[in-house]
């Protein structure tokens, strides 16, 4: 101990390493099972409020997590369970937050939409559509301000629906003007609540939304973790080397309703079924790993069983965790005064 950890530098190998591929299968499945369990607990009335599940979109955060450096920050909207899990936060504390319990990542005060873990460089969990985009740009501003040769990159996620909010374009302009180290990840899951991209966007190629600011963008198959990894590596290289922002439009899909109370009349069931059957990011990766002999059926089964246990334990433990103490109600409104410095 005592020795300062050597700071990692930008990754360059465009192909994912074998162990990253296998662990991607694990990480995506962990998110999937977590969300299934969360959906179940919502149905039982144990989770309250709004609960937006990430099932279907797992390859996006997972591929990026494999390409990012530990100090790169992430920020997103309310559909944030996958993001915080991808930052390596214990599913127990995430589940406890969903249940509004004392051990939740936000002490039970934030709930499903407001997960945070600053030690893991995850800046939330924001409920106002689009608001995280200038904030993510501000994280990048701070990164640039520090004048590090190898700056951290802010990974700023938002949805196709959010991509129409005005503050997104204010952010794009500033980020390009000041060459801020930020990558904008548009998670285009094709719908904003009940509104498809076509019904809301004059320009449906969202990767080109930065053109008038000179920001480069790519469309990426967001159901393919390897494609996500490769594209984000390019974006990280660009942002970290001082060239400014980069946009990645991840074409993805959400399996569940927008939140738990979605009547889902705006899309056909066959569409959802087709995505689940033919484009599922987890099954596609599994098939590929088996084909390339990087994983056997037995190993896959073992991973599945382990994850099942991890999620069951996390959920059961979280259900036993108490609600926050009533004294927590009036704390954290302001930073507790500390004049020690």
């Amino acid at each position, binding site marked *: 101990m005592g020795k300062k950890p050597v700071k990692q530098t930008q990754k360059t190998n465009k192909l994912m390493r074998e162990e990253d591929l296998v662990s991607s299968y694990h990480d995506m499945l962990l998110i999937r099972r977590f969300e*299934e369990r969360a*959906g*179940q607990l*919502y*149905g*039982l*009335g*144990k989770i*309250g*409020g*709004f609960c937006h599940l990430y099932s279907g979109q797992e390859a996006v955060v997972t591929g990026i997590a494999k390409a990012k450096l530990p100090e790169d920050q992430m920020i997103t909207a309310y559909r944030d369970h996958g993001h915080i899990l991808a930052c390596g936060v214990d599913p127990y504390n995430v589940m406890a937050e969903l249940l*509004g*319990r*004392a051990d939740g990542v*936000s002490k*039970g*005060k*934030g*709930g499903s*939409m*407001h997960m945070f873990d600053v030690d893991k460089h995850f800046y939330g969990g*924001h*409920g*106002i*559509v*689009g608001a995280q985009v200038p904030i993510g740009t501000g994280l990048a501003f701070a990164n640039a301000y520090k004048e590090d040769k190898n700056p951290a990159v802010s990974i700023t996620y938002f949805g196709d*629906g959010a991509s*129409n*909010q*005005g503050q997104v374009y204010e952010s794009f302009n500033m980020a390009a003007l000041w060459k801020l180290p930020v990558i904008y990840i548009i998670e285009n899951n094709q719908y*904003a*609540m*009940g*509104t498809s991209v076509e019904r*809301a*966007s004059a320009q449906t190629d969202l990767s080109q939304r930065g053109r008038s600011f000179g920001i480069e963008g790519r469309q990426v198959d967001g159901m393919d973790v390897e494609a996500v990894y490769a594209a984000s590596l390019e974006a990280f290289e660009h942002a970290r080397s001082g060239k400014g922002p980069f946009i990645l439009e991840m074409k993805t899909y959400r*399996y569940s309703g927008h939140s*738990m*109370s979605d*009547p*889902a*009349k705006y899309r056909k*069931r066959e569409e*959802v*079924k087709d995505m*689940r059957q033919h484009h599922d990011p987890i099954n596609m990766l599994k098939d590929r790993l088996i084909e390339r002999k990087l994983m056997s059926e037995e190993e896959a089964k073992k991973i599945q069983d382990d994850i099942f246990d991890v999620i069951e334990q996390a959920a*059961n433990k979280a*259900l*036993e*965790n*108490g*609600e*926050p*103490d*009533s*004294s*927590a*109600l*009036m704390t954290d*409104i302001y930073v507790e005064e500390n004049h020690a410095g």
Partner: protein
Amino acid sequence: MPVEVVMPALSPTMEQGKIASWTVKEGDKVEAGDVLAEIETDKALVELEAAADGEVGKLVIEAGTSDIPVNTPIAYLLRDGEALSDIETAPAQVPEKPEAPVPAASEQPPASSVVPQPITVTIAADPELPADAEMTEQSVREALRDAMAEEMRRDETVFVIGEEVAEYEGAYKVTQGLLEEFGAKRVIDTPIVEHGIAGLGVGAAFAGLKPVVEFMTFNFAMQAIDQIINSAAKTHYMSGGLVTCPIVFRGPNGAARRVAAQHSQDFSAWYAHIPGLKVVAPYTAADAKGLLKAAIRDPNPVLVLENELLYAVKADVPVSDDYILPIGSAKILRAGSDVTLVSHSRSLDACLEAATSLSAEGVDCEVIDLRSLRPLDTATVIASVQKTNRLVTVEEGWPVAGIGAEISAAVQSEAFDYLDAPITRVTGLDVPLPYADNLEKMALPSTDKVIQAINTVCYRQG
């Protein structure tokens, strides 16, 4: 073990549901994700999906059954090798956990916790209505929809614009049926662009149209508040009266259930602060109709602060197309002689319950529904205080510079000599609203807190 399918909780406010139809029958094979039934919730018709592969073993509850409490078993799925006979003995699929979570550490139950006993309250008849007015029972949601539909039929320039208002028929189903009747020209889905539509609405209003801008909730209107205040409220004055802005901004305001700080705010005081705006906050279905219609016909910008938790509440509503209430007039919901309670919107539930429960103990409360927050009908409040000599204000919003503070200032300046006790305010606590169930309850006004405040101003032991 067969998989138990229970009546799911499908929204933050759902407590019971109806099985509208079964889309499978006993013996059918299903895969995870297949639709089993259509469930009618408090907000919508939602498809219930199978959580696992299996065979439909038993449908326990018939289609058409309503008021099925959340968590009631409604069907069983059999998995490989399971038989019908396994059902009766099957324990619940999800291991049963302690129902009420044990509070961590030293928590005492909050002083405000009341055992929710349903209290039946009655509301005085509306003095503005002729006794023979034709009435129909409607929810607040339906009354608001009818208000818009009637005004759209009457006036071609009225249109509705907002996120999910057309094809989805409103995130909270308030605009149900409007697209069908009035078409896409007048019922307009927008991208997620609150600031843009508020400004666009203002421009359209300048040019002679009458926009009804729906905010999915008022939390999102903060994106648009510059256009509401700087453009809608001020332009008539700045132009020396040349430009008018006949626009309505409406949507649910205030806390829903456990949707945490960014989705649970009461903006009553915010908008009531602004000269050039009118602000109403209907409580009953009839007022919802009469005030929204008045807002649409008003030549000024009007904010209609609705409440999600009141949308499903039903009451008698006048059928008339010309049921227009005056903006700026409070209503006495319950006459009384000992203490005046002044409130608006959903906090009136707590006031009426407190009044009802204390009347059994001989305390006679007068309950005033402000209905309009700008202009504020202080005359009705003052007249009441002159009679009762005691005042409690109740609101969900934060205390600092709130509606209660404004009422207190008016009463102390105009009825100071009539007061027999200091005015007491019950408000939401001075804190962003937390998600955790126990903390959220502590932070909001409750019947119990209102009773305590009444006891305080009456110098009673509670």
